[in-house]
């Protein structure tokens, strides 16, 4: 027996970053909005107050903020012919859960894409020729330019009070910022968080080598900040508990610290937690969404009718819900046709631990998720001539550390035993004197990397799990080798006692037991053409025009940067189109 709710103007599936922003923007437009969140309600207080927020075992290891994999997981395989098996322990990627979603447990690394990232196929073809791209690489252009997106990238930064140093202010280059960034219309809302010492050592070495180090742009506010919704954030104190943790200082940008306090005051918005959406319902034409079906806390099935549906859950779950709802044509890797599940991508890191003698006090417990670290961007996107290196894309190199947590962030030199007296001695000797330099590289999209529904495994409700088919490609091995060579040059210039590196080499397969970036993208990609993309430039479904699908599922390929800044910019771009165009005349905003 399905419970039928009173119709509303808009229903939002998933109350993380993009769902919270769109709920607010639609509520400001006067719409009656219902936000559905499958997880629990949570807020800075009482959930993340000091000192209980700083519990590495609970949050860092046991992933208290994350979706319980025993309820719902993803199956993983490397190739089309393999059998996929469920992901049973968090490492390679994280499935968020609860109010605020991944926006509550990220590190706050807040980048904009490079202008060429949005036209990545045509840019590379134009510069290097069509043959430069490997045959099975399926990268695509966005149907929008950096200049069009800039006001909305800016808006998301001003939502978060993001700290950083502008490098290109309206075309004027500014020393100390990123010389490769697209022109920004305003400086960052708050100044950079001061460099931590490990980052400073990296910056000095990078500068000596002629690079242009700059403070990592960070949604860790460097000072208290009030955003345009009137919501106020606190200052980061570099407590070292950021990624996978709630921020007890109200400093890390999250729905809870930037949107929800104002959204909560809107009488035309209603939040329903423990509401697990299982289907977007369509009318009999299949061209119009009439609402969504969810399972409530009591296990009852509920139908919520709505004129407008926003699918704003996590990237992987967005894809799964589209497939379960039968919206759009599922992707077929053998033909490259179909769009739902297409162009799944990830990122590839290398990590170098850098060890100093006892006269160099790194004090790693001083660290922030993103503030205080230093970046060089010389080898990201197409910031350098790739022609002689034979690969597409790149990544940034970052120096510093995000904390000195005892379980996950205690590095010992290579060759140290994994336990026992020698390990203890090495841990003690090195803890205060180690930092790291990491390369953070893009993964391009390929015809054989995709998402579909698993034929075997099901969640606790009996619905099929999503299946991930993914492995590394030569382009990325070359990319990471190139970046890691540059890392080693800088590290040698830093003059440490020793260093050790973890890097993926040809022959290494994608390994879900290893942590790397966690940034999964694609599957409901944006583009100019319904035959090659699932949503238009406004993230509006080509097939069901009263459905908008937000988040990293829209990325046609991954970028070298962390994705959240681009996600926020695309969300505000879509919100603006809905408010100024769609609501006046509901229908397709781009004619196919």
């Amino acid at each position, binding site marked *: 027996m399905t419970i039928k709710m009173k119709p509303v103007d808009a229903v939002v599936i998933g109350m993380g970053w993009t769902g919270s922003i769109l709920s607010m923007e639609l509520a400001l437009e006067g719409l009656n909005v219902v936000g559905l969140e499958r997880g629990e309600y949570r807020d*800075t*207080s*009482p959930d993340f*107050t*000091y*000192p*209980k927020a700083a519990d590495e075992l609970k949050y860092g290891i046991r992933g208290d903020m994350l979706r319980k994999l025993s309820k719902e997981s993803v199956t993983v395989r490397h190739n089309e012919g393999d059998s996929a098996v469920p992901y049973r322990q968090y490492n390679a990627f994280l499935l968020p859960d609860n109010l605020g979603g991944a926006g509550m447990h990220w590190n706050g690394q807040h980048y904009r894409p490079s202008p060429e990232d949005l036209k990545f196929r045509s840019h590379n073809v134009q510069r290097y020729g069509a043959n430069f791209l490997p045959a099975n690489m399926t990268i695509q252009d966005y149907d929008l330019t950096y200049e069009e997106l800039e006001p909305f990238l800016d808006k998301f930064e001003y939502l978060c009070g993001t700290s950083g140093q502008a490098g290109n202010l309206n075309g004027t280059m500014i020393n100390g910022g990123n010389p490769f960034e697209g022109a920004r219309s305003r400086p960052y809302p708050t100044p950079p968080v001061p460099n931590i010492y490990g980052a400073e050592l990296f910056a000095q070495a990078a500068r000596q080598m002629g690079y242009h180090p700059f403070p990592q742009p960070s949604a860790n506010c460097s*000072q*208290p900040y*009030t955003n345009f*919704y*009137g*919501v*106020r*954030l*606190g*200052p980061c*104190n570099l*407590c070292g508990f950021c990624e996978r943790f709630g921020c*007890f*200082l*109200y400093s890390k940008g999250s729905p809870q*610290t930037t949107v929800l*306090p*104002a959204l*909560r*005051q809107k009488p035309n918005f209603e939040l329903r937690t423990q509401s697990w959406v299982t289907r977007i319902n369509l009318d009999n034409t299949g061209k119009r969404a009439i609402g969504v079906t969810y399972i409530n806390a009591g296990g009852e099935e509920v139908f919520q009718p709505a004129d407008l549906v926003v699918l704003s859950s996590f990237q992987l779950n967005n894809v799964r819900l589209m497939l379960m709802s039968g919206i759009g044509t599922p992707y077929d890797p053998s033909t490259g046709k179909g769009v739902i599940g297409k162009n799944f991508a990830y990122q590839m890191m290398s990590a170098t631990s850098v060890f100093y003698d006892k006269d160099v006090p790194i004090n790693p417990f001083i660290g922030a998720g993103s503030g205080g670290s230093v970046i060089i961007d010389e080898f990201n996107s197409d910031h350098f001539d790739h022609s002689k290196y034979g690969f597409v894309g790149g990544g940034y190199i970052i120096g510093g550390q995000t904390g000195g947590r005892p379980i996950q962030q205690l590095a010992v030199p290579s060759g140290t035993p994994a336990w026992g007296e020698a390990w203890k001695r090495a841990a003690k000797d090195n803890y205060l004197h180690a930092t790291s330099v990491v390369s953070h590289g893009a993964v391009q999209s390929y015809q054989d990397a995709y998402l579909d529904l698993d034929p075997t495994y099901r969640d606790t409700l009996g619905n099929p799990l999503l299946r991930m088919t993914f492995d590394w490609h030569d382009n990325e091995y070359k990319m990471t080798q190139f970046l890691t060579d540059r890392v080693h040059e800088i590290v040698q210039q830093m003059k440490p006692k020793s260093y050790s590196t973890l890097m993926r080499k040809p022959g290494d397969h994608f390994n879900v037991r290893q942590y790397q970036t966690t940034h999964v993208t694609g599957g409901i990609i944006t583009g100019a053409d319904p035959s090659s993309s699932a949503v238009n430039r406004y993230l509006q479904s080509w097939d069901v025009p009263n459905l908008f699908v937000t988040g990293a599922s829209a990325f046609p390929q991954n970028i070298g940067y962390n994705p959240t800044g681009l996600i926020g910019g695309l969300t505000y771009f879509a919100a603006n189109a809905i408010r100024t165009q769609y609501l006046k005349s509901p229908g397709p905003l781009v004619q196919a």
Partner: protein
Amino acid sequence: MASKITPLRVVAGLVILGVVGLGVAVGAPVAFGGDSGNPSASLPVPITPALIQRGSYVAVEGDCAACHTNPGGQAFAGGLPINTPIGAVFTSNITPDKQTGIGSWSYGEFERAVRRGVRPDGTAMYPAMPFPSYAHIDDADMEALYAYFSKGVQPVVQQDKPANIPWPLSMRWPLTWWRWFFAPVVQPASAPGSAQDAELARGAYLVEGLEHCGTCHTDRGIGLQELALTPQGGPAYLAGAVVDNYSASDLRGDPLTGLGRWSEQDIVEFLQTGHNSKTAAFGGMTDVVTHSTSHMQLSDLQAIAHFIKSLPGSGQEQAFVYNPAVALELQRGDVSARGAQDYLNNCASCHLSSGAGYTDTFPALAGNPVVNAANPVSLIHIVLTGGSTPPTAGAPTSFTMPGFADRLSDQEVADIVTFIRSSWGNQGAPIDASTVAGVRKAINAPEPTLSK
């Protein structure tokens, strides 16, 4: 939250008064009660939408909702329990329902209740109802208030709960005596200099009357009457008092324990948002900001600030001078001072080693009147239970300080509080563990779960 309404502590004193008899001369500060109103009077003006609108604003200024709207209940339907040492009383239904609310009251009955503390049957109210302050409301506002509660509020059928106070303590006749002794003559407030300064006059009118600030911020005498209801009543007026295990701050010009270092703008900002560059609201003040001051017009807040800044300090306190020595010690890693280590571990991440906090975010401890108050109960109370700033329309973020009762022993709290009160130029006296134990017991805060 039973502690929400504090003045009902008065009730205990009233009963004492009744039992020991009122023959004792109590030095009543004002003339005997004045006339007792005319219960048969009818509203002398027609009820118009504009009058209702004005009345709704008067109700905000009077903060009627803070007591008469039970959290989670319907607006103005009453039922909020107020625990007193002799039993619980419950606020009344003031919606216009004819049977269970005040829908059948005449204007005269309404006026008599609000400004004189007399119920329609002629018996006296518990002075939890701040009628000694409301006596200063003028006729125009009274009429608007009546219009609002007659036509602007949704009637709700909800029976009042009788006070849970056993005989003989339940007798109301001593309340009448109390009213005769302590309730002032009904007349609009005035402050010295009001004639020349319209803003000051408006501020006095609001602070002494509708906002009834003295209910919490003025100390009470032997009959638990406010020692002064106006500035003319003496230097006790708004000089601070202990209410519900908090010390409501001295609002006068004292530089250390009062608002001597605040500008009028600081006061306005505090009333609008619950925080400013110096402090943040806690305890009962969060309700005041939530229900009343955050909804008030800027000009009225400015008038309140102007009036409050006209109240002189006692002249006994030296000016606060920030002393950087403690911050430098902490930054050097010197934690030899009593409480310094515990302060660093528990407090400094928000309030900083400098004690400066962050504007409108985490309150400053250096120079904060709450920290320097002679009575440390607020500081101890906040360390034990924490607090949240009120979310308001203009400042929707609620910043929360967690409670440390389950983490810190009485001795540790005493050490921290002593450290805070003696650092950065603060001049509060040291605190011992037994004082903390007393507060912990009084507010029923938990004990530490781990021993050292």
